[in-house]
């Protein structure tokens, strides 16, 4: 099966690969595009921009989302910004530098060619978004403003206050709306994809549940695009939206699409700490705050004790008694080190006993110096809405006391394996945005998720899918009254019937919380062999408990949120197990994946390029059976692979 991992990376110099591939790709004429149908699942930045752009080209698109409107997709919650190699700041930025930063930030576990293409199309994304009317921040002269993000030394991030994801998504959603009005795209809100349908080994449609009526429905097409985001909610507590899930991707995996680097999950350093047992969602504070905020814990344990007992406030601790540990450990990048590095450093301080809240799991993010330097108004312009949000949630004002933050699960770099065309190992099935694995390696840099979603949707998939569809325009519309569709629908129906039949005593959420605890303890910020093996065993046991004792109230044929959650949790068990297998196999520390067995004397992550410079692509072998590993070697021809250094 290893021959399935053909990455289709074009030959030739790096900077010419995309141009070369585009020139090779066969075209579909306008009159034939009208005959072709494409299903897009998900309406975040990737899905909405893909559906809109494909509709503009003249294809017949069906777009599905689980929420009541495409505009609610979780891209909306991205705060800080979007990267692009515009070099508007004259700070020596370039396509190469954005490419280099992304490969290095990803700890040399992403494909050179894909990342270079991402950097190459980045500038056009900003042009497109401005033309759509997205109100990016402006300088007083009317030109676009930029800021910095972690892991880079230039200012290339474009932003719309702390609501960049919202504005970009509303832009893509507007483009989508225009196509819906034009009749090229048909929108199916409140539909959840529950299976992928293959005909003769190719993706030809999906089974989706109408979340309002509960009916299962069949949809056929000539190709299917998965744009359903990541699987961070495997951990129960994460910054993902409550309904974000990995189910569509997992159905593809079960139908034969390989799943790549599942253990690469990003733990974001600046989230509001967990407040108690009743919590179900963590809130991110934008990375952009690290532009001006300084991260610290007290130097003295006695100050920590007094803080926890509420005897003193952070602002009362004198400057010389503060440990700005990122500035101390990583002087070249300071507070703007990449997310994985910042998260581990926070954990290190808290594990050493310096955590500043009652749970011992929090560090300070302090703006007092910035307020003094920039003044109240400029700080408010940059971060006002984030300060307000923090105050609403914690009832503490960042204007007076530093924020408290702690790392939390935020993003998954792993995902469905795709080739250079973003096609999976199943012909006709594509994966874009966070749902695929391709661009971020072991760690994603800030403001790059929005860039990737829109790059894939606006500029890559509309071109590459043509190569496949150019061979399909003589095929008639996919008939859904076939044994393949009937079998897939029956499998989903059996799954649903099984869940209702259990009629146990445990709620879905209570079981999901247990899964989350296993994941955070053993597949979280520090992983080791014994813990990972334990995780696999404990998840299997928990899954048994789920099938013996879960309670799914109500019926299938109604709006039933508990049924939705139960189906997703079934898939999270599988994803969690897969993550643990991958983490167990990858006995090196790399990006967000930290193996305790593989670290330097100073406690920094130690990569093992000799043994692990590959993409781990997993093939499903059945429930309860260990998946099979396939390796795609990573070859670096244009970049020297070195140890990541943010110290000097």
């Amino acid at each position, binding site marked *: 099966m290893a021959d399935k991992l053909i990455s289709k990376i074009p030959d030739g110099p790096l900077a010419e690969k995309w141009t070369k591939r585009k020139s090779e790709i066969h075209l579909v004429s306008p009159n034939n595009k009208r005959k072709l149908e494409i299903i897009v699942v998900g309406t975040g930045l990737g899905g909405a921009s893909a559906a809109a752009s494909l509709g503009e080209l003249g294809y017949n698109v069906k777009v599905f989302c689980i929420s009541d409107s495409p505009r609610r997709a979780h891209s909306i*919650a991205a705060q800080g910004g979007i990267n692009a190699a515009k070099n508007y700041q004259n700070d020596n930025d370039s396509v190469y530098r954005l490419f280099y930063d992304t490969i290095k930030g990803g700890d040399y576990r992403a494909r050179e060619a894909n990342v270079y293409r991402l950097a190459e199309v980045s500038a056009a994304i900003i042009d497109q*978004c401005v033309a759509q*009317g997205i*109100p*990016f921040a402006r300088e007083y002269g009317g030109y676009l403003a930029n800021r910095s993000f972690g892991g880079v030394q230039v200012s290339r991030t474009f932003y719309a206050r702390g609501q960049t994801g919202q504005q970009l998504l509303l832009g893509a959603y507007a*483009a989508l709306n*225009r196509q819906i009005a034009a009749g090229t795209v048909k929108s199916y809100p409140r539909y959840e994809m529950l299976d992928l349908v293959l005909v003769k080994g190719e993706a030809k449609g999906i089974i989706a549940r109408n979340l309002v009526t509960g009916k299962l429905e069949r949809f056929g097409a000539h190709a299917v695009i998965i744009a359903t985001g990541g699987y961070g909610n495997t951990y129960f507590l994460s910054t993902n939206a409550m309904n974000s899930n990995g189910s569509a991707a997992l159905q593809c995996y079960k139908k034969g699409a390989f799943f790549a680097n599942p253990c690469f999950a990003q733990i974001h350093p600046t989230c509001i700490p967990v407040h108690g047992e009743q919590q179900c969602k963590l809130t991110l504070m934008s990375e952009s705050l690290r532009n001006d905020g300084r991260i610290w814990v007290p130097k003295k344990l006695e100050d920590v004790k007094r803080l926890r007992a509420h005897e003193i406030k952070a602002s009362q601790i004198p400057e010389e008694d503060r440990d700005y540990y990122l500035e101390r450990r990583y002087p070249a990048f300071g507070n703007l080190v990449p997310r994985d590095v910042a998260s581990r450093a926070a954990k290190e301080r808290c594990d050493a006993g310096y955590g500043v809240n009652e749970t011992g799991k929090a560090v300070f993010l302090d703006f007092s110096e910035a307020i003094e330097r920039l003044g109240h108004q400029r700080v408010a312009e940059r971060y006002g809405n984030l300060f307000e949000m923090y105050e609403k949630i914690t009832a503490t004002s960042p204007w007076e006391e530093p924020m408290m933050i702690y790392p939390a699960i935020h993003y998954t770099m792993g995902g469905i394996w795709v080739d250079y065309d973003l096609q999976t190992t199943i012909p006709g099935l594509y994966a874009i945005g966070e749902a695929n694995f391709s661009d971020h390696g072991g760690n994603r840099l800030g403001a790059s998720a929005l860039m990737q979603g829109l790059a894939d949707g606006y500029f890559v998939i509309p071109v590459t899918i043509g190569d496949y569809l150019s061979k399909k325009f003589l095929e008639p519309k996919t008939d859904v009254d076939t044994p393949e569709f009937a079998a897939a629908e029956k499998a989903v129906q059996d799954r649903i019937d099984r869940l209702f039949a259990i009629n146990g005593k445990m709620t879905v959420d209570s079981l999901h919380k247990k899964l989350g605890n296993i994941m955070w303890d053993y597949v979280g910020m520090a992983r080791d062999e014994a813990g990972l093996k334990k995780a696999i065993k404990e998840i299997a046991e928990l899954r048994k408990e789920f099938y013996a004792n879960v*309670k799914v109230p109500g019926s299938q044929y109604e709006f039933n*949120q508990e049924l939705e959650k139960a189906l997703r949790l079934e898939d999270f068990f599988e994803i969690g197990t897969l993550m643990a297998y991958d983490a167990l196999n990858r006995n090196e520390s790399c990006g967000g994946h930290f193996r305790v067995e593989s670290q330097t004397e100073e406690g920094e992550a130690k990569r093992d390029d000799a043994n692990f410079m590959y993409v781990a692509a997993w093939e499903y072998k059945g429930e309860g059976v260990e998946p099979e590993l396939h390796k795609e070697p990573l070859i670096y021809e244009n970049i020297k692979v070195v140890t990541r250094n943010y110290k000097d």
Partner: protein
Amino acid sequence: MEFNLKIWRQKNAREKGHFETYHISGIEEDASFLEMLDILNEQLIREGCDPVAVERGCKSSGPVSFDHDCREGICGACSLYIDGRAHGPDDHVTTCQLFMRHFKNGATITVEPWRSAAFPVIKDLVVDRGAFDKILQAGGFISVRTGSAQDANNILISHDKAEESMDAAACVGCGACVATCKNGSAMLFVAARVSSLALLPQGRLEAKKRVKAMVAKMDELGFGNCTNTRACEMECPKGISVSHIARLNREFLKAKFSD
């Protein structure tokens, strides 16, 4: 903390709804309103599968359905009418950013869905806001094809105009303005989009066509008229100003007079 929750229950769009009252205790002050509902649902599911409780006459309608997603105040999915106010007693927040510390211990809290002819109930507290999508499909966009844009810095926009446009673009499409308005008007929602685009040079070319199409669609979908009560502005979680309605009206009149 403990509360009595008087919650609207409605099986689907066809059946009549009613209030049911539940008691809940052990709620942390720092819990959000939706976390409190999660806990209530856990309780209702457990009760629903307890044969003793059922025998005692417990006639739970099962867990309460409510829309929610990001829980960060930005997706616009959550939509509850709490104690007579859209998104509850705190100002300028969505329900997911409302915390139990804003309620008195032991209080009775009434929770209803958005009530508007244009937003039919799907179940319990979940309503269908598809009408908003339809209004935006009528013209809430700039017609630019992917790939045809010029360099971003070729379009200069003053700092203040961009900020003003952003003020309007902050709308999350939750529908609180409609639910709050005694006329069930969607003027603030429509105005936010029209105004945000009208303030930018890119949006000017289609401004007349856009405003007429969106207003016509709004009227067609059964939203009421605006009588300038400004209740929408008060309850908008993003604090979107009614000055955008004034701009909408100007844009609309300009478009009509140039016909």
